[in-house]
């Protein structure tokens, strides 16, 4: 119980005083949002790995997914677990921090230090809660661009991410084509499908149905919609895995018992696993932030900003692309990724596309997938040659 309480305290601390770099933009540098609101002052919490070279040419922006954060490759300050892309990012890893300067910012609307619904509203001195404006993927990318301006980086060597992170990757190229030398969107779609919106709505309804949500004002009333957020996470977690992977891991195995109990405890291992996933999630994530993140994904439809023609979003971009999908990902299936590839072809972009054979579902982008690592490594190596990056470590 004390461990959990301390985690929750740590998670609350991250909102205003994160264990990472923070840039607090002055009120004179507001962020104009798609919804029409103007957000000021904007705070962006971010993490960096490796060293920026003298030409500022080796920067790689990693964009995190729905419930990720800036802690890509270091121990997480709340959970104590390794960074979420520890396998991909680090010294000698495919995104090699001996060669590249890796940046990851907590997204706008997040709850790990970047401005979001749990942050303090400067007008009231209290958490924004639902008064925080609804943000879009494009708004997240705008905030990241402000961070890059702050760091003095004109052009990114690469932008990489999976799932919602990959939506940001696509938006980066569409919004700032001249600032992106190469792009790696993994397991994503150019728009959120009806089915995906449906899953998100189930999650949001679970949060809002929790009496402790208090119409979104739980932070002001000292409550937490733990049950609701946990259920949302449980439902979502199923969509990140595949039937095959679930069955291999859990089958119909019973949890610490030899027979079913003819009751509603967690008889099956899969139930126990999901409950655990749900409960650990609520210790580190803000429920309102979850609503905002899912909404941003729902609103994402890149082609809609370009007369419904996705290729127009990429027209004229000199960016090199490496699109990756996974055979067993039914949340962002290969067809959705291939759709992006076709648009890129139509736009004449330089694109590589790899479909990785795996039964681990959407989450495969976070896991140990040697084919994924080989593709990313090879792609970045060749892009590095084209960009004239040194094979050696960044200039000291």
């Amino acid at each position: 119980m004390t461990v959990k309480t301390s985690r929750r305290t740590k998670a609350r601390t991250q909102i205003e005083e994160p264990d990472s770099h923070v840039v607090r933009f002055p009120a004179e540098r507001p962020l104009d949002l798609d919804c029409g609101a103007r957000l000021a002052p904007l705070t962006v919490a971010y993490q960096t790995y490796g060293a920026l070279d003298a030409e500022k040419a080796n920067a790689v922006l990693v964009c995190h997914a729905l419930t990720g954060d800036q802690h890509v490759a270091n121990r997480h300050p709340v959970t104590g677990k390794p960074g979420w892309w520890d396998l991909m990012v680090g010294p000698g890893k495919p995104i090699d921090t001996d060669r590249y300067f890796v940046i990851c910012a907590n997204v706008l609307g997040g709850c790990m230090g970047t401005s979001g619904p749990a942050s303090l509203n400067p007008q009231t001195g209290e958490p924004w809660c639902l008064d925080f404006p609804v943000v879009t993927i494009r708004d997240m990318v705008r905030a990241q661009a402000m961070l890059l301006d702050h760091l003095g980086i004109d052009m990114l060597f690469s932008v990489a991410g999976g799932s919602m992170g990959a939506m940001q990757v696509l938006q980066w190229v569409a919004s700032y084509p001249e600032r992106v030398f190469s792009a790696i969107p993994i397991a994503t779609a150019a728009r959120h499908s009806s089915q995906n919106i449906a899953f998100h709505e189930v999650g949001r309804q679970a949060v809002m149905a929790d009496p402790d949500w208090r119409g979104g004002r739980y932070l002001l009333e000292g409550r937490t919609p733990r049950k609701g957020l946990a259920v949302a996470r449980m439902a979502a977690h199923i969509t990140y895995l595949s039937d095959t992977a679930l069955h291999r891991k859990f089958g119909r195995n019973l949890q610490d018992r030899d027979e079913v109990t003819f009751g509603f405890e967690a008889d099956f291992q899969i139930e126990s696993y999901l409950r655990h996933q749900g409960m650990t999630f609520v210790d580190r994530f803000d429920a309102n932030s979850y609503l905002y993140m899912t909404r941003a994904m729902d609103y994402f439809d890149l082609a809609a900003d370009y007369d419904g023609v996705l290729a127009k979003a990429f027209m004229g971009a000199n960016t090199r692309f490496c699109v990756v999908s996974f055979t067993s990902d039914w949340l962002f299936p290969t067809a959705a990724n291939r759709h992006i590839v076709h648009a890129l072809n139509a736009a004449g972009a330089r694109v590589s596309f790899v479909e990785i054979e795996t039964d681990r579902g959407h989450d495969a982008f976070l896991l140990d997938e040697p084919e994924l690592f080989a593709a990313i490594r090879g792609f970045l190596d060749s892009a590095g040659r084209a960009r004239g990056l040194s094979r050696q470590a960044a200039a000291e």
Partner: protein
Amino acid sequence: MTVALERPAPADRALPDTHAHRTDLLMVAEMIEPGTRVLDIGCGDGALLQLIEKRLGVDGRGIELSQRGVNECVAKGLAVVQGDADHDLVNYPDNSFDYVVLSQTLQATYNPRDVLEHLLRIGRRAVVSIPNFGHWRMRLQLLWRGRMPVTDNLPQKWYETPNIHFCTIRDLLELVQDVGATVERAVALDPRGRRFGRDMPIWLLNLVGEQAIFLLRRNGVDD
């Protein structure tokens, strides 16, 4: 020395040795102008793309079915997407490439005519190479032994070959005419890699050429 064999199949099957035939590869490269945009369909491990990018400074793209082939290409820095000739060409815009290369693959597609039309639509020129089923050895095997021909370059038996639409040089020339295209160059190779050109009558080319490479242009497309 196997021949390009592109069919939907389990992803972990052996990599098709698309450009193992070095002479064939060089011959294709010869038909391509430097500094152009080239799409190589069924690009295997990317040997041709690598060759023409390096030697001719072309802006190359590839399509390859096998995951292993795509990964090898991506690791080499080539812009290659996973896909196949039968399904993915429809997504490429008209005249988006100067050359579209289909090496030893036409006979393995479901709809060779559709594929050929796509090649001529997408590229200002198409470079197509085929194994020639009219080669005298093929004819002899069928005539004397009454068996489906099996050769060094086409080693699979009838029930395991992915080559479902074999044709002869004559057959291809007829199809080229039917789809409204013109042969700009034609080269045939014998099993030892000796080349024969258009100075030879077609009937003879069709007899001695074990494989043939054609540079095609859609009628109405100028230089």
